């Protein structure tokens, strides 16, 4: 039993964190909202090797797994990274690996090298679909490899301008390349990515609200000195503190093929999204009217948290899984049954 990350994993996290925090400022996110995706930023991520973190070494990647990447996904959340990096490393690459064969051999090196963007779309939706060179699209529980030029994409505006969502229709002749197991695994890895980002987003919102309420004065003192404000922040800290371990455990379970990995992912997604939702609620309150403006940066993070709550299996999907485990499958529970 060793519930902790290695020194190497932490050092990697720290270097990526330093890069993201210096490069992905709120100004840059706002700029990208205006200009649309920017090849310069994606190139920077490629140069750091981040698109190849989970690509096997023989295909030019670093050969790491979900557990190595989960800490990075958390940092992507902290800066509200407006690029599909978490999707690439946690969903697209593992899905290609599972499909294997020529498709994996062709596309994995290109993804690692930053020459191609491969994106997975479930239930008729895909993020950043207009930028991809290959789409892996689900229909009827099966996955199809689709050339984006052969697909019909329709942009749908999200509350989070960084999430460029498309509905997608494609030729019914496209051959299925994988079944429900691969689709389910893709959804679970996407959910893990959303959960990890939600942890980072929640932390960012708390940091912003603590900083703001430390400076903003009313009645002659910082509003952060009032207990009503403190307790709002403490309540977020409590939920966030107890959401982290479930997310890390889910990452470990996916990386190690644990038979209950899917349930662990649902536990993680529910806990992390709940913490982020509470962070958004209490942090906008702590900012007062400023929190309701476009001008103050809080909404960059708040909106991504709201959007991720419904992505990769909404609350109902993940609660249904918990319900099935507890009441239908008669999962052994209680003291000593967790690991």
């Amino acid at each position, binding site marked *: *039993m*060793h*519930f*902790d*990350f*290695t020194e190497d994993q932490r050092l990697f996290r720290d270097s990526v964190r330093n890069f993201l925090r210096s490069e992905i400022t709120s100004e840059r996110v706002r700029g990208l909202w205006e200009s649309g995706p920017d090849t310069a930023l994606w190139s920077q991520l490629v140069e750091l090797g981040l698109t190849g973190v989970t690509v096997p070494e023989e295909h030019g990647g670093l050969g790491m797994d979900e*557990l190595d990447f989960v800490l990075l996904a958390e940092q992507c959340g902290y800066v509200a990274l407006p690029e599909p990096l978490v999707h690439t490393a946690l969903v697209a690459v593992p899905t290609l690996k599972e499909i294997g064969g020529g498709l994996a051999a062709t596309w994995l090196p290109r993804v690692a090298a930053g020459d191609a963007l491969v994106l997975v779309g479930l239930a008729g939706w895909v993020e950043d679909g207009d930028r991809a060179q290959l789409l892996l699209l689900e229909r009827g529980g099966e996955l199809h490899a689709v050339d984006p030029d052969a697909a019909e994409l329709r942009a749908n505006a999200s509350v989070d301008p960084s999430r460029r969502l498309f509905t997608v229709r494609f030729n019914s002749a496209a051959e299925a390349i994988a079944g429900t197991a691969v689709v389910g695994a893709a959804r679970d890895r996407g959910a893990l990515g959303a959960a990890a980002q939600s942890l980072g987003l929640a932390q960012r919102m*708390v940091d912003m609200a*603590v900083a703001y*309420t*430390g400076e903003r004065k009313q009645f002659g*003192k*910082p509003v*952060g*000195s009032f*207990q009503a*404000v*403190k*307790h709002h*922040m*403490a*309540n977020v*800290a*409590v939920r966030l*503190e*107890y*959401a*982290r*371990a*479930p997310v*890390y*455990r889910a990452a*470990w*379970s996916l990386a190690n093929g644990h038979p209950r990995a899917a349930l662990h992912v649902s*536990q993680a997604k*529910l*806990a992390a999204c709940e913490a982020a939702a509470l962070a958004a609620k209490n942090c906008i309150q702590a900012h007062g009217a400023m929190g309701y403006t476009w001008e103050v940066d809080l909404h960059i993070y708040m909106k991504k948290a709201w959007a991720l709550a419904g992505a990769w299996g909404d609350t109902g999907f993940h*609660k249904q899984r*918990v*319900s099935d485990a*507890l*009441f239908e499958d008669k999962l052994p*529970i*209680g*003291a*000593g*049954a*967790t*690991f």
Partner: protein
Amino acid sequence: MDLTFSKQQFAFRMEAREWLEANVPEEKLKSFDTEDGFRQHREWEAKLNEGRWGMVTWPEELGGRGCDLIEWLVFEEEYYRAGAPLRVNQNGIFLLGPTLMEYGTEAQKARFLPKMATGEEIWCQGWSEPNAGSDMAAIRSRAELDGDHYVINGQKTWSTRAVWADWCFGMFRTDPESERHRGLTFILVPLDSPGITVRPIPQLDGLPGFAEIFFDDVRVPVDCRLGAEGEGWSVAMATAGFERGLLLRSPARFQETARRLVDLYATHRDSADRDPGVKAAVMQAWLDAEAYCLTTYQTACRMMAGGKIGAEASTNKIFWSELDQAMHAAAMSILGARAELWPHAPDAGDVGGWLDGWLFAQSGPIYAGTNEIQRNIIAERMLGMPR
């Protein structure tokens, strides 16, 4: 990261399970807030000690097993899984014991630890006073040095299990000129000393689970002082740290409550589902109990690697106490019209012990530092918000 137990950890689990299965009393003991029940629980402590299962985290030379925190969590899982009795001497073995090992003289350790281990001496705490509750530094009870004795005068309150306990540990003001947390001294007091009056206070269940302790010129030898004179606050903070830490509220207890709640819901599903919020509450109980377990293991691993629990320990107190309340509230909803009945009522049927648990759950957010105080600590010391 490796989230599997080692062979040794598994063997330890099985050894504990085997002993507990053979030794846990078949009939549930009476409440330790009754005289008979207190005696039964004291005997149980002696039995645990005989099997070297009483204080598994204590060193071997003191009758423990030198267990690390992971083994401690495993032991607790087996302990609660087996439905073993509550620990009547938990203030001693989990709070004072570790503090004695850290601050006590060799003579003090030799004098107090073995009898604590056997249950021969049961300990209670003397922190709160009528005007020093959340504001613990407002303590006024005096201890005045007179030769080789302290003479204690004052009053302590909310002292859990003081009614039948043998010793009390607490903080007393030794410097009358001092204010706040300075000038306080940590002293161990035998409760059979002349000048002590214990006045039981009935709790919500009607039983005298705690008490007031009055000190009227109580003479205690100087060698009952733990740590230096005037250093009581830092000694006490170590105790409070342990209290909020892993020893006292390991996850197993809450996981077992969550398991019983899931069973209760499954048994009464048809009537329970008339309130659609109940199922959600039952699921949330399990999710939170699991999150508490996972987080505790993660924290334990961090501590074993040399890390310390800081102000984030305050999140722990809030999390488990609110979880405990929520779980019992869900159980009360499921039991519906019968929830108000005591299990011994002739027509109570299978209501079980939920009412007792519900009453006790009301105390969680209050004792060991109210949750409001914990929220202040989180905001100020963990998040760095202005005082």
